[in-house]
């Protein structure tokens, strides 16, 4: 049990996929324009990560080394296609907002990296912990980044259509650049600098 908790918690801070491992930066930069998108992407990644970690851990003994990567990719893309069809059917607005980054979860390095580095070597139980931890760590990073980009880039913030607040001056003159691609790099860079200053992220 303690092992399970260790695997679960490491993804959140100590091996956070975005801020520590720098995995999956491409979707993190692209879909972090609003908190809604970040939550949707998190749900998608968490589901795929959980599904692929479980299956890959379950079949690890029967998969020969030489075909493991093709097998991983088939398993992962199956889950991604399921997510993409379900989103299209039940949350079309989110499906439209995530666009190409939803199918691209297939090649998200976090998922393949967890399959290769963890699930293919560990028990199903621990792989579940790893998937939840890594998925939530990715989600937490995405939500922090998108929070700053949305509130500073558009001057207001709303979650699933519920308007939360509008900033006094920025509401009129938002820093639109932060909602654009360069803004993603700036926000991630500044957050990393801040985390390092705070000692959350240690340089080796």
């Amino acid at each position: 049990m303690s092992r399970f908790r260790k695997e679960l918690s490491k993804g959140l801070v100590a091996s956070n996929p975005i801020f520590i491992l720098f995995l999956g930066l491409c979707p993190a930069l692209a879909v972090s324009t609003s908190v809604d998108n970040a939550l949707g992407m998190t749900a998608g990644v968490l589901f795929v990560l959980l599904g692929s970690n479980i299956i890959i851990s379950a079949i690890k003994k029967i998969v020969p080394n030489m075909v493991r990567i093709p097998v991983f990719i088939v398993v992962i893309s199956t889950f991604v296609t399921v997510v993409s069809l379900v989103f299209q059917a039940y949350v079309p607005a989110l499906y439209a907002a995530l666009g190409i980054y939803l199918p691209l979860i297939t090649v998200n390095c976090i998922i393949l990296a967890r399959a290769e580095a963890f699930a293919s070597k560990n028990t199903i139980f621990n792989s579940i912990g790893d998937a939840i931890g890594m998925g939530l760590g990715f989600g937490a990073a995405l939500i922090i980044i998108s929070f700053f980009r949305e509130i500073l880039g558009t001057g207001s913030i709303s979650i699933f259509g519920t308007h939360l607040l509008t900033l006094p001056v920025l509401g009129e003159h938002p820093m639109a650049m932060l909602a654009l691609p360069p803004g993603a790099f700036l926000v991630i860079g500044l957050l990393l600098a801040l985390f390092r200053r705070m000692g959350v992220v240690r340089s080796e």
Partner: protein
Amino acid sequence: MQPNIFKRLYPVILVTFIVLVSAVLLSFTDDITRGKIAEQEVAQVRGVLEEMFPNMTSLTLENDIYTVLENDTTIGYGFVAVGRGYGGEISILVGLENKTTVKGIVIISQDETPGLGTRVAEEPFTSQFAGVDIDDVRLDGKIDAITGSTISSEAIVEAVRNAALEKAESLGE
């Protein structure tokens, strides 16, 4: 000899088997979601057309053209036009009040630059189309482009005019 061949073929058999399982699972998922996805598209079009034609009582779809009816009398048409914008495809739902006049347009989906190109999906731009003759749907005609979003504006204007002319022809004079 026998076990050796099996050993060499094993990876092939395994991958084939896994792909088969995956294909079966996906066709089940497709089966479950397909109806819902088609429904979502029609529901979206219906919602937009209802707003455009408040008197609408029913809607029929034939050859990609929605005919808007008020108690069996045709009061307009609707169809989806697709333009090539700056960031990708722009889907526009066009309403016609008769075969030559635009009732209004609504941008259904777009991938334009946030804050610049996305302004073509907003009221000040889209409201210009109401009541305009389809031949005048041009940037040098009755429509003004959004400053800084010329490509997005042009993509919409061209897509609306070309699709409208084509649909008007297929509806007959």
